[in-house]
Structure formats: C-alpha cells, structure tokens
C-alpha cells in the first residue's frame, strides 16, 4: 500500500514538472531545459529562508522562480521566437548550463541544506498500516495543484488562450490573443509549478546543489514525449507515468534498484515504438513540429 502511495506521490510530482514544461512548450514550441534551474532556485530559496514561516518561504520561492522564468523569456527566448524548435532547444540547454554555473558561483558547489517542513517527516498509522506523512501530503498537494491547473486551463479565458496558442499560435494572434502577455503568463505559471516541485523535492532531499532540478526535468521531458508532445493533458499524464514507473521500480527492484533509470528508459523506448506520437496520440501520428 505504501508502495502505491509512493508511486502516486512521485507520479504526481513528475506530472507537475511535466506540466510546467508543457505549458511553455505549448505556447512557444520551446523545450525548456532551464526549467531544471527554476526548480533548483526554488529549492535554494526555500533553504535559505528556512527560518521564515513555511508559507512565506514558499511564496518567496515561487516569486523567485516566476521572476527568473520571465527574465529568461524577456532576455533570451523572446529573441529566438520563430527560429525553430531546434535552435531554442540548444539555447535552453546553454541557458541551463549557464544558470547551473551561476548557482555554483553564488551558492557554492557544495550542497546547501536545511530541514524544510520537518513536520512532514515521520509516519502514522491508519487502518492497521503505516504511512509516511510526506507521501500523503505530497499526494494532496499535487492533486490540489493539478485540479487548480485543470480549472485554469479548461475553464478560464487564459486557459482557453493557452490551449488555442498551443494548437496554432499564429491564428490565435489573428483573433486578438496578445502573444507577449500570453507567453509571459505561461512562463510565470511554469515558474510557480517549478517552485511547488522544488518544495516537494527539498522536503525529501534537503541537500540542494546546482544540479538539483536536473534529474526530474530530464525525466519529465521524457514524460512529455511519452504522453504526447503537444497536449497539456498528455504532458501531465506522461509525467505521471514516468514518476509512477520509477517509483515502482525503485521499490521492487531491490538490489537492482540502481538500474531503475535504465529500465525506465527501456520502457520509454517500448512505448515510443508503439506510439511514436505519444500515448494520447493516434497511431502513426507525426506531430507537426
């Protein structure tokens, strides 16, 4: 039971990460490797503001991540609009490395740590079984955020514009959608999502180093590819699947658990062989990227 809970918890976390990536991809066809650095900066901010009340600490982290996201958009990605996904991908890779090195210079190469939300450690009993508090809280947080995002995307004007822009940005502009504002919103929201991922991760692993957010971002990207690269639902679903599988592998592989990533990637390979466009796509669909 705990294993399933863990899997859902990890799946939810990865879904949030993938959703943040998917938002930006949807409006700009940009695969933002630097999203990892948004997660990392959130974790750093939470660690250095750990003496403040948790909510305030988180708000600062979310603000910081959102600001960083917007700045990267203004300074770099805006100039690369229209150059094509490959160029933007490489740029985001370069930006990611650049930010990592900046963090090294600012925070130092050695990990910073602090016990964030220590009330989340420990476990409790329910119906005769032991559960960890952190997994329950994480599941609750991710469900809450995913529901909120779902509402935002499906039922608000902003969400409608995001969905339209993800399908066909040019036509959306013809109808009056303000491209700069929309893209800025997408980046800001992705920053907030990154902060929530950063929070969840730093509770589990209080050691924050410059490469903190890298692993989950790479896997979340893989998740987006599995789930269907041009749909927000697909992104969240793909991210969830990756997190879920990873958690199950970690639990049941025992000694071979170090190979969890290898098995995961193999699973990804198989999924992509059957559905090159992603799980939510139709067979043999080649996305128009």
């Amino acid at each position, binding site marked *: 039971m705990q294993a399933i809970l863990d899997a859902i918890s990890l799946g939810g976390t990865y879904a949030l990460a993938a959703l943040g990536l998917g938002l930006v991809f949807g409006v700009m*066809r940009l*695969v933002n490797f630097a999203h990892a650095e948004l997660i990392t900066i959130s974790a750093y901010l939470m660690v250095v503001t750990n003496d403040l009340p948790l909510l305030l600490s988180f708000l600062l982290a979310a603000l910081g991540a959102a600001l960083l996201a917007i700045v990267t958009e203004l300074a*770099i990605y805006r*100039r*690369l609009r229209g*150059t094509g*996904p*490959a*160029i933007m*991908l*490489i*740029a985001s*890779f*370069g*930006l990611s*490395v*650049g930010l990592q*090195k*900046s963090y*090294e*210079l600012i925070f130092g*190469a050695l990990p910073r740590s602090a016990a964030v939300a220590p009330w989340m450690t420990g476990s409790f009993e329910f119906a005769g079984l032991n559960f960890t508090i952190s997994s329950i809280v994480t599941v609750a947080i991710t469900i809450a955020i995913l529901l909120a995002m779902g509402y935002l995307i499906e039922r608000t004007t902003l969400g409608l514009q995001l969905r339209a822009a993800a399908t066909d940005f040019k036509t959306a502009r013809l109808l009056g959608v303000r491209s700069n504002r929309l893209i800025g919103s997408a980046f800001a929201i992705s920053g907030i999502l990154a902060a929530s991922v950063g929070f969840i991760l730093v509770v589990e692993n209080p050691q924050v180093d410059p490469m903190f957010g890298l692993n989950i971002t*790479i896997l979340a*990207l*893989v998740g*987006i*590819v599995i789930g269907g*690269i041009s749909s927000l639902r697909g992104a969240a679903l793909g991210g969830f699947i990756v997190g879920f599988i990873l958690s199950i592998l970690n639990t049941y592989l025992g000694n071979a658990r*170090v*190979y969890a*990533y*290898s098995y995961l*990637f*193999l699973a*990804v*390979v198989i999924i*992509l*062989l059957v559905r*090159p*466009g*992603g799980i939510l796509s139709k067979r043999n669909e*080649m*996305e128009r*990227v």
Partner: protein
Amino acid sequence: MMKDVAGLTRFNARELFGPLVTVLILSIGVGAISASLQLAVQFALCNLVMVIALQVFVGNSGVLSFGHGAFAMVGAWVSGMATASERVKGNALALQELWQPLIGFRLNLYISIFVAMALGATIAALTGAFLMRLNGLAAGIATFALLGLFYNFFFNNITLGPGSQALPAVPKFQGIYEPLAMALAAIVIVYFFNISSTARSLRASREDLLAAPALGVSIQRVRWIAFTISGALAGLSGAMYVHVAGTWQVQDYYLVFTFLTLAMLVIGGSASLWGAVVGTLVVTAVGQILLLWEQGKSVVGIQLDLPNGARSLIIAGSLVGMLLWRFAGVTNGKEFSIPFSGRRKSS
C-alpha cells in the same frame, strides 16, 4: 543563388583541403609550443571528431541528438578495456567484480579503435532504427534518454566496468600524430559523405519535411544512415579520448562533454564541415585562454582574474549569445572558402 545554399553538392578540393590543412597546421604548430598545450591539442582533436560526428547527423538532418555521448562512452569503454594492462584489470580495487573474460581481453590498439567505431555504429544502428521514427523534437529528447540510460548502466555496473570509478592504465598516444591522423581521416570520411546523394536527400528533408518524401526520399532511411555513420565517428571520438586521458571514466562522456561538443557545433555552424572545425577551434582556444586566466596567468600581456567555474559560464553564455546573434554560427553555414572573408548577413 545556388552558392547561398548551405551544404556541399559536389567535390571541391578547396572545401576538403581547407579544413584538413587548417587542422594539420594548427595541431602541429600549437602542439609544439609546450607539453600542456600538446595535451590540450590532443583533447581538442578528440572533441573535433565528436563535433564532426554531430555535424554528420545534426547538421544534415536538422534533428538534434544529445545521445552521441553514449556511443563515445561505449567506444571508449571497449577500446580502454581491450588495451588496459591485464595486471591492473586483475588487481585494481575498482575492478574486483569484473567479468573474468574481460581481464584477459586484449586487442591491438588500432584494432580496438576500429572495434570501437564498429560498436558505436552498431548501437547507433539499433537505437536509430526506432529513434528515427520519431519526429525531430521527440527524437532529440529521446536521445537524452539514451545518454541517460548508458550513463546509468555504466555508472552502476561493476561486472563490465569500474562503475563510477576509473579504469586506469590505459595506454596513451605518444604525441599528437596518432589522434591527428584519426581526426584527418574523420574529416575525409565526413566530407565524402556530405557530398553524397544520401546526405543531399537528408538536407532536403531538413529544409522541408513534407516535400522530401514527394521526391522519393525516405526520410527515416537517410536519417538512419547518417545516424549510424555519426555513431561510428562518436565511437572513434570516445576511443581517442580514452587514449589521451589514459583512463576511462563514465562521467567524461556525459553532460559536460555533450554540452561542450554541441556548443562547438553551434558556435561554428552546424550546416557545414568547416563549421564543425571552426567551432572546435574557437571554443578550444577561448577555453584555453579562460583556463590560463583562471590560473592567474597572462595571455599576450592581458591578465584577468577569473573565479573558478567562470569558464563554463562564459562558454554557455557564448553559446546562447551566438544563437541570438547569428544562429547559423560563425561560418554562417558556409564551407571553407578562399578568401575567407566577407561574412554574409544572415537572413
């Protein structure tokens, strides 16, 4: 108008000998200055081969690959394992669980390098068979997964290798002539591939994904061919690297290597062979200068105090800067030409 089209179309001696002579002269010239520079040249030649490998695939197809480090990893592993001394393999702490046959496994250095290329090509062929079915962006991300898979495997596996530690006592190249010869051979191979009809078909698909099949071009097939060839060259690059470094360590072929070689390709210009050469040259030179400054030395009378780690930051910044300024790279997509002047404004 035809001259503006990026990519070679038929044999032009200048376009082949330009890069060859440049690499030859610079390697010998700089390598003769000091021992540390000679080492830098050796590493640069390894990077050059990898950048050329990337150019073959990424440059011609327009599809990104972050996975070539995996082929280098494997190529380096097989060449290192086949040439490291038996005594070390049998006794080193890191290799206690090594699979018995590997201890006695021994190949001549040059043969092991060929094996490395063959292995790189094979793995590229196998993974490419499914990777090429994905569209460009998904393929790029999937290659990242490929890199991660191999890294994870080698990092944790202590039966086939030293795991997270180093395999020591790998024989090194004496001087620069061997890696230089290999690099020159790579340039020749890639040049002749780039003017082949396969490469031309591939470039057609890069320009227009929908039109190419209408010309009877099977995009998957030509991409796969380029991917396989680039896998062989990546394997070569890894094998060269392990004989320059003298040890095999899985971290050497992971993110930093991937980022650096990709940066070299982008900064030089991915559309041409000459771009690959120029990119490697520029980034290596800048990296060396930055390294000297980091160490507190002066370069041509100029001295800058750089904190450690600033080097990668500057290279990353240059990468992004180049993309903002001229995303076809320094060479702007052109092959080597004389006189080498008059940069075109990119459209």
